[in-house]
């Protein structure tokens, strides 16, 4: 009997520290599978960010550095410029990328820096306990928008792919979701495309992955999936915003 399913080599044996129903685990696995499939484990550098995935260097079996809050695209730029043969990816949440690190992500994209960004958008601050994120939806209750996010008071959510798509720089921008198997397959394709693009020197790629946070949304894992479909996807439409061009994209 052959082995039909096993842990990707790009994942360590460390157990994930994520909550039940959280999608980080799925997204980690997709990234790891892509690293395995592209055979780049020996020259990949993971740039970890600050948020729930802050210790993801314990999970990815690659070289890694841990970057300050929001600065992962800058740190990744440093790695890539000094070690151009490395495949460098950041893995950032919405607080890290779309609040603290807004300048860094915009300028990395504008420079068309040859790095890959996996951007996990769950519309809330997970690690610190459910505070409002830059991507928190209008009306959404969090511990720091307890009456529901009011545009007049707390401003409006930021659509990162659309924002970056206004720049000439980036090579590839796509928003995906991992709430059901069909979308998981689509998400993996996107992540693979992003890494392939970098391998070919194609420039800046960002895959935004909509993700559930049942714990801080105060929903069951299944209800959280529904919420991704009904609410998140309504405000953050899935799709390709910037086409990668010529990339061998089979999965």
């Amino acid at each position, binding site marked *: 009997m052959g082995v039909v399913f096993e842990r990707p080599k790009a994942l360590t044996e460390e157990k994930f520290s994520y909550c039940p129903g959280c999608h980080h685990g799925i997204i980690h696995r997709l990234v790891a599978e892509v690293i395995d499939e592209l055979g780049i484990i020996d*020259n990949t550098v993971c740039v970890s960010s600050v948020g729930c995935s802050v210790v993801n260097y314990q999970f990815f079996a690659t070289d890694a*550095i841990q970057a300050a809050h929001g600065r992962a695209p800058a740190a990744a730029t440093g790695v890539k*410029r000094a070690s151009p043969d490395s495949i460098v990816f950041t893995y950032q949440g919405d607080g890290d990328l779309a609040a603290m690190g807004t300048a860094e992500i915009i300028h990395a994209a504008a420079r068309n820096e040859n790095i890959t960004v996996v951007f996990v958008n769950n519309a809330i601050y997970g690690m610190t306990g459910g505070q409002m994120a830059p991507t928190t939806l209008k009306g959404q209750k969090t511990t720091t928008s307890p009456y529901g996010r009011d545009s007049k008071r707390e401003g409006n959510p930021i659509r990162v792919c659309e924002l970056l798509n206004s720049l000439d720089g980036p090579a590839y921008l796509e928003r995906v979701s991992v709430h059901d198997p069909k979308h998981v397959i689509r998400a993996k394709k996107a992540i693979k495309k992003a890494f392939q693009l970098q391998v070919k020197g194609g420039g800046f790629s960002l895959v935004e992955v909509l993700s559930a946070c049942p714990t801080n949304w105060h929903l069951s894992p299944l209800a959280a999936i529904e919420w991704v479909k009904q609410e998140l996807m309504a405000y953050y439409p899935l799709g390709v915003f910037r086409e990668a061009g010529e990339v061998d994209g089979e999965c």
Partner: protein
Amino acid sequence: MSKVLMKGNEAIGEAAIAAGCRYFFGYPITPQSELPEYLARRFPEVGGVYLQAESEVAAINMVYGAAATGARVLTSSSSPGISLKQEGISYAAGSELPCLIVNIMRGGPGLGGIQPAQSDYFQATKGGGHGDYKVIVLAPASVQELADMVGTGFDLADKYRNPAMILGDGFLGQMMEPVDFEGIKKSEIAEKTWAVGCKKGRERNVHTSLYLDPEELEKHNIKLAQKYELIAENETMAQEYLTEDAEIVVVAYGLVARICKAAVEKARAEGIRAGVFRPITLWPFPQKVLRKATAAARGVLAVEMSMGQMVEDVRLYLEGRLPVRFYGRAGGMAPTTQAVYEEIKKISLECRGVE
């Protein structure tokens, strides 16, 4: 003729090339902009990477990333920009990633001014950002020394896997003096087995400053503290001028020490036995040498282009043995030779009055 007349800021750039540095990430700010401008012009000629970041914050984090690959990497700024870099410096210290940071100081606080000052002494020598850490701080006094200390800074940073800083001021950055690059000693850069990048055949390398387990973080803190003790034991540098028989020792660093030297010569000409003690490493402070240099002294005068920062260390390290007076100018004003001379004279009269 191997000497060239060069601005301090530009000399740092050329010296960085001589020291094997090929990566610079920075952001323009007066009075250090000639350095990024110089490297933007020169690095492409030597295969280096110059990148103007979107901010000082981004620049220092690019430095952090490049340092993790084992590259010799440089960034520079002036006071307000260095404040922005403190986050990244703390991370580099915590992750033990070597890099060289240049601060060509200007007056503060806040936006302050653009004229020379020495008011970032506390920030540079006491950590600067959050957490228990130290940065190796070098304080050159001439354009030649600025150039010489670039290599020294990189070597020390590599040796101890710690950020190092060159602390200059707007005068040093802007002034021109002859500088000889041929005489700069070339350093051997040891292989950095800890670097991230292509890991073929080795265990993976991970750099982080995160230790969620308090016991682990304390262990890390203790390890860092032991490293700092080692640096303090082995790497202090100082220069003494006529201190042997000096009854008054003037303590000053950087360019100000040269002003003090001129003042001391003037005092000597009038029979006042004065000398200058110049710390070259500000951290670690050459405290033992200071105590030795003031062995014959009856009074100490600290002179700075600030309202009094280094003077606190001078008092600390002299342990109350001697009266320590302070004379400072701030905001871009510099002490004159005459003013320092008059301070020396005052102390001399006081000392004699005691007799």
